């Protein structure tokens, strides 16, 4: 009996540590694998479908919704031609982001993906949407950085926004490359509690730091 209890306790503890339990971890792991391997809209949609399935079971978990939104944002970038379709993808992403904002109003990652979604809206038609969505993205990222100044994804989005502005106004972008480089160098210092926590951004920061060359 005692061994069972030990086992149970350790299971419960790991379960709490890895929120959602091992099944959840496993399913998320598999969906994340599919997401990182995806190189077409269809693949990405399949990954998004997996996250959606998980989110419907684990209604108190924010990560499935987070990745669901992330997949759809990436899909909007993958779609090259159809602007309406891009917006339809972003409508789906926005639905998940809105749920996230209600569920985790103080979560820097959530505000970062919120800003990311606005940036994607901007990309659909920069000439027309530049100002409005640039501002909305800036506001969301500002909130994220206020909550968690060290968050490398919020930093990445912030540097990218500011660099875009500087480029538009014909200013020197070198300082932003330097900022990106510094953020890239410190990227690994940011603690990741669980393997399914958001961890993207390192490659993006690297690419950004090299855009001055």
């Amino acid at each position, binding site marked *: 009996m005692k061994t069972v209890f030990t086992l*149970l306790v350790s299971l419960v503890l790991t379960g709490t540590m890895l929120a959602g339990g091992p099944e959840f971890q496993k399913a998320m792991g598999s969906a994340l694998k599919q997401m990182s391997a995806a190189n077409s809209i269809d693949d990405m949609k399949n990954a998004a*479908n997996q996250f959606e399935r998980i989110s419907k079971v684990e209604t108190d978990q924010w990560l499935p919704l987070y990745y669901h939104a992330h997949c759809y944002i990436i899909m909007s970038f993958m779609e090259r031609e159809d602007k309406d379709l891009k917006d339809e993808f972003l409508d789906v992403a926005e639905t998940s982001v809105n749920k996230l904002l209600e569920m985790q109003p103080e979560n820097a990652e959530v505000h970062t993906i919120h800003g990311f979604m606005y940036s994607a809206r901007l990309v659909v038609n920069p000439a027309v949407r530049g100002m409005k969505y640039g501002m909305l993205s800036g506001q969301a990222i500002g909130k994220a950085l206020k909550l968690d100044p060290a968050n490398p994804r919020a930093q990445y989005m912030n540097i990218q926004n500011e660099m875009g502005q500087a480029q538009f106004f014909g200013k020197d972008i070198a300082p932003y490359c330097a900022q990106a480089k510094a953020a890239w160098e410190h990227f690994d210092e940011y603690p990741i509690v669980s393997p399914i926590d958001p961890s993207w951004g390192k490659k993006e920061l690297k690419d950004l730091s090299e855009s001055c060359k």
Partner: protein
Amino acid sequence: MEWGRFTSNSKTVKQLLTLLAVLFAAPICAQSVITGRVIDKQNQPLPGANIYFEGTYEGTSSDQQGNFKLVTDLEGTYELVVDFMGFETHRTSLEMPQKEVVLEIVLKEKFNELKAATIAAGAFEASDTKKAVVLRPLDIVTTAGASGDISGALQTLPGTSTVGESGKLFVRGGSSEETATFIDGLLVYKPYTSSAPNTQVRGRFNPFMFSGTVFTTGGYSAEYGQALSSALLLNTNDLPAQSELNLSIMSVGGDIAGTAKWESGAVTANVGYTNLAPYLALVPQNYEFEKPIAAVSGAVSIRQKVGKSGMVKGYSTYSRSNFILSQSNSEYDNGILRVDLSNENNYTNLTYKSAIGEKWVLSFGGAYTLDGDRVELNDAHYSENLEGAHVKASAIRQMGERVKLRMGTEWYRKNYGQAFSNEQIDAKNDFQEQREAAWLESDIHVTNKIVARVGVRGERSELLNSFNVAPRVSTAYKVNEYAQVSAAYGWFYQNPLDEYLIYEDNLQFERADHYILSAQYNKNDRMFRLETYYKDYSNLVKFAPDVPAYANSYNNSGTGFAYGVDVFWRDKKTIKYGDYWVSYSFIDTERDYRDYPGEAVPTFVSKHNVSVVYKHWFNRLRSQLGVTYMYGSPRRYNDLNQPGFNEGRTKSYNSLNMNWSFLYRQNVIFFASVSNVLGFKNVFGYTFSSTPGTDGVYDQKAIVPMADRFFFIGCFITLSRNKEINQLDKIND
């Protein structure tokens, strides 16, 4: 204690043990294999559908052919759910294990108001949020030649005539009084500034205030009455994005606006001062200002969210303006008419809107207008006072997702008076009017492809002691994803003009019946629209002799007609960073009203109107260039030296306008514009002396614009904590 708590809860233990068993026991149960295909009603495959067992992680996605295969170890009864973006969720109950299940899943397209047919006949919409609209709100500001004026910009749309000496909206053969302006559903009694005879007016409202504008050229909703031709619906912004300070420094004055925003509300206040004196000192005019136009204005607007979905909006503006203008006029002894005009105007508007539960949206609102003109005309005094109120309550009831019911009731009050005095005469005339109205209207989406709007409006006027019932019907059929045909029919009533009612109230409502057919094609940032209409006017006021006056005889025997074709083409796609639209309107109209001896073409109508608007964004220069060309074919005027009535023809109207906006910094914009760059000598008509000279010829004088060109420069600065924002977000989308 801790352990004890665990052991005492044997149920938890059991559950955990079951969980363990599930986790670690190698399942030796039968697998079920579910295969199938997901298609739509047209038998087209739906790739990427999400197929899963409810309450589990188990699921898959359909492939390019819509096929899927799902292998599961689940046992028991489960709901197989199929989800696809834009389609209704499909559910099947499956009992497992089963060896092989083959399913054909036909998904039904979800009803989507954005993709369904829309009521479009006779309506031009400018909106940020909706997709397939004609204009974005900021198109209004960036249209060259519009000078940031709403009605100026709308004059580049088909169905309008450019009437240069007025500046107001003339829609489909209707006079400017036949267009009513509403802010958040409430009537604006005086939408335009006051001006001297034959000089251009401007709208009173800053286009930046509005995020949604619907300009109807006919066939509009039963919610709106008292407009024979057109309703212009201006909807104010919701909450601003942030606290900020806006400074505008212009060649004609300055404006400062401050916004304070909090989580659930905001307040904006602005003061502006306009003075044309410095400008007129530099640029010679066709008319001589003794005292150029000077105006002060101020406005406060408040927004406050109430509860989860409620919103209170309040807006109040006050302005006063003055000018003294001398126009040569042979009617007066010294050959000069000196007009010294002062205007004072207040408009206040308060609305509350809230959703009640899932199905009801309620709105309440009230608006109040107080306007006074004081005019010194040579030795005579003239004054005009208007006090108007409008109170309205309306409700929208959603009945299922395909039927929307709208209803409401409203109350109008108007006190209007004129006074005229000179050495011989001292006359005062006024009237009080009160109207009650109610309407009921329903939008029915018969299918995704067919929508019908059926409505009726009833209105009673105390002054006319008369009641009218106005049915309105509008319908649309969506041919395919990009094309739609629409039709509308309705009766529209309006009170006789104030200038008649002060003398005679034994009159009836004037009436116009609209018949509209319309086709629209909208694909990939290109839009084509073709609309044809017929308007039948009846009960128009006629009077004799020639000007509205006290002892005249008035009756409602006037009639008229108008028919025409409006064409609109907009293309944002073909030219990178370029955007253009072309409008063409053809109209044939005649009416027998006022003092007309019979049916004649009114003087405000041009048979052909063309507008070409082009905007180009230069990325490297961070600048937008706007060019607008407008053409109006010759207008009629009543040539007293020729036989017939309204048989004189002016030359055609031409104007090429340009503007340029430059984003200097994130928060600083420079703007410049020139109207009529090529300096066309436009003539809007002629006035004649009331008596012929000794040679029997009436003296004629051309009505010309105040100046052939108008130059404008301005600088707009936004100060906020977030330095990224400037007023260009107001210029670009």
